């Protein structure tokens, strides 16, 4: 796996609700769970580049997101079912650790996905996933139709949910850089970080 531990750890701590400087005890807990996440996860991804975005992505908010890009890539990625199973087992015998591992796995799939997308060149946007910024989570259907991520063990349920749980599907603009913004997030209305003037992520370039 290619992603850095530092980025994963920061993100995992943020998902767990740690604000400010974590204690040594918390750090040890996350380090340990991150180690386990890396050993259990089997990151797999598929992607395809399109000169013209597929029809579902010609409308807003995708059009604005992709403005200025020369092409785009649809991507889908997952950590596989093994980590779901492990989190589930821990939820029975050690729920506290289950929560930490769950956060680490979420951080890991993001970080691995970012690292994997380097193949689309340095001039690219972050991964915009259906559900962000007013887009419809049902647009995942179009990504599944184009990429058939079933072959890497992903499935889109009728509810719009993806399984395994640590899975993502999205669109990456190629030809310009664009960082994550809180304004695009589906949780912006209720986010406690925004209220505090901070954010949950740390973009790759700062």
């Amino acid at each position, binding site marked *: 796996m290619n992603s850095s531990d530092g980025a994963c750890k920061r993100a995992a701590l943020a998902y*767990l*609700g*740690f*604000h400010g400087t974590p204690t040594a005890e*918390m750090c040890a*807990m996350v380090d340990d769970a991150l180690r386990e996440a890396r050993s259990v996860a*089997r990151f*797999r991804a598929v992607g*395809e*580049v*399109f000169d013209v975005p597929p029809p579902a992505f010609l409308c807003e908010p995708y059009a604005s997101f992709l403005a200025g890009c020369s*092409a785009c*890539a649809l991507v889908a990625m997952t950590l*596989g*079912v*093994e980590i*779901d*199973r492990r*989190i*589930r*087992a821990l*939820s*029975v*015998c050690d*729920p*506290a*650790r*289950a*929560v*930490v591992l*769950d956060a680490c796995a979420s951080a890991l799939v993001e970080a691995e996905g970012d690292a994997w997308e380097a*193949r689309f060149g340095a001039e690219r946007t972050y991964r915009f996933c259906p*559900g962000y910024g007013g887009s419809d*989570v*049902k647009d995942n259907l179009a990504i599944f139709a184009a990429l058939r991520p*079933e*072959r*890497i*063990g992903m*499935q889109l*349920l*009728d*509810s*719009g*949910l993806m*399984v*395994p*749980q640590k899975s993502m599907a999205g669109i990456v603009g190629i030809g310009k850089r664009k960082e994550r913004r809180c304004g695009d997030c*589906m*949780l912006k*209305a*209720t986010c406690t970080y925004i209220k505090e003037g901070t954010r949950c992520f740390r973009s790759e370039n700062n």
Partner: protein
Amino acid sequence: MLPLGKQLIVFDGGFGSELALRGLEGLPEELNITHPEEVRAIHRAYAAAGADVITANSFGLNRIKYKGKYAIADLARAAVENARAAGKEVFFDVGPTGALLKPFGTLSFEEAYEAYAEIARLTSDMVGGYIVETFSDLYELKACVLALKEHSDKPVYATATFDGTARTLTGSSPEIVAQLLEGLGVDALGVNCSLGPKEMAPVVDRLLAATSLPVIVQPNRGLPTLKEGKTYYDLSEEDFTAAMRAFVEKGVAVVGGCCGTTPAFIRRLAAWKGQKVPARRVEQVTAVCSSTRRTVIENVVVCGERLNPTGKKALKAALAAGDYAYLAAQALRQQDAGADLLDLNVGIPMIDEPAVMKNAVLAVQEYSELPLQIDSSDPAAIEAGVRAYNGIPLINSVNGEEDVLCRILPIAKKYGAVVLGLTMDKNGVPRTAEARAAIAARIIARAADFGIPRHRVMIDTLVLTASAEQPLVKETVKALTLVRGMGVKTALGVSNVSFGLPARPRLNQTFLTMAMEHGLNMPILDPLDEAMTGTVKAYAVLAGTDVGAQQYIAAYRDAAPAAKEAPPQEEDLYGCVRRGLKREARAAAERELAQREPLAVVNEVLVKALGEVGEGYEQGKLFLPQLIASAEAAKEAFAVVGEHLPKRAADKGTVVLATVHGDVHDIGKNIVKVVAESHEFKVADLGKDVPKEAVVEAVLRLRPLAVGLSALMTTTVKSMEETVRALRAAGCEAKIFVGGAVLNAEIARSIGADHYTANAPEFVKTLETLL
């Protein structure tokens, strides 16, 4: 009839890539009706290239995957007719549903089974056989092969797809796939898709070593390369053929191609047609497996005995109440303690044993990866468990009685299970080792009559108590040696030997050592009993099977002499709860009880400590894992204190919790459960993806104080709303709480809920106001 296993058989190659070449788009299955001539042209091209078998264009044709406008029956008939036009043997192509099975997805084993049963019913009369291919989930593969075998007598060839680490997408090894397929009675098995022939070589080698059945290999045309964002296969015909040649020389019996291969590739393979398939020597081992873990019964392996209700009050109660989470937790404890497989027995009076066995198998395999031993005296319960099992289990048990053999052995045969035989019959347990060995021989012979080879039989020579039958202890042990001499592995329920005598652990350990030295392979014991598992580990060193004592050293490296250990600082109960020290909480509660009244322990220590933790969490000083750990510690303490309290005057009441239908995120709901339980609410956890009918049923039955519904996604809030409406319509009097990432008080109101709570402490605080 194809000369399967005798002469090399050649299948056709890639179909999707050929369709693309002809500019045909859309669902390949529908092209059978919309463009039959083009489909036939591809089949004819493969036939002309020399393929012995033509695969119908039906890969995605099952009712779960195909949602188009045509009837499945019509598409199936058209697919077969098109394939027949090539004038060769036609196999129906059966692919995965594309849906993940429970517990990771939402498709049930039975739904997958039904989809394939439908295919078999529609096509069995039309085709020469089935090629089941590109499966990546062992459980779905089992559903498919079972359905085909139960609805058709045509040959079934089956292949799975593996990644570069030689595992399927759901984590099964080539050995596990081979054992499952061979056990289910397919005609040939192998590997296809995902990899090119070069990358596939390690998988092919392992399949050839693991099965005596004919092996199929259908690779892609190398690994795809991405050019300008598009996928290309560009391995040359020469390189493909060279790699395939090596497989054929090693004993592969059926070859063909998958994605990217063309008639030109098949023409090269067809040049070897009719060649004799080289004989292979396959070492037969006794093994059981789950979907991700295989336990080979050799030297000494430990079978955990804790999932057997005999003499276990808590397990009996859990089974009677349908509390399968308790079983899962027991399974995980044994797994963590190092067990190699787990006995599962659900036999208590007054239950529907087959139904409970099935649910227990589903619950345990969801959480634990250890292979199972399905233990029952009821053949229907055995079959229910074995059928639902995602793997190859051990069946416990048969004995020398003919009617028992006749009822159980067909189940073992059908599902490929290993069967444990007890050396007793209608006359009871024979007194001599020789007479027990004679029963063992009879069981082995009868198994063979039913088509179960010797390596799928194990024998238990039966332990009698030393207190009642002292001279017979040596007979049990001697019988082990006799049975091992017949080439089968052995098992014993070790701790029975000491029944009725004092200091039982000493007797158990000594007997275990005697038995292992005489050929015991599988003691059935409590893996949490460190003295017993330690004896197994020590024996492995002394018997030379733990080479270099590596495992022993790894287990005991840190074991310090007890006297030198500094006495640990003892935390008081308040501190245990505040710091989330689950393990220390019980002892701390006992100490606290020595000093105060039980009720004072609850009110002055536990409630206060939990209050401090909850406040700290809401103020952002403490975080989620700490909150949960504290709740866990408090639960442990409550269990101890509760025993000293008079029957609680006021039960705080029941809470029904569920993640709504369509949503499988349950971590938030699980946190609420732990925290609510730590505040002494009784929680009925319905799980995730729960249909509204099930919520209504539970609420009407349990008459709870409150119902808590969880949803994580905007899309499943709708399902939450429907559940709320159904509850209201059914006259639910309980307060309805909702929670989850995308909810807030406003949404909660709009969907008709009574309360929205943002987190677990708030949930509990609001609950308390209802009392």
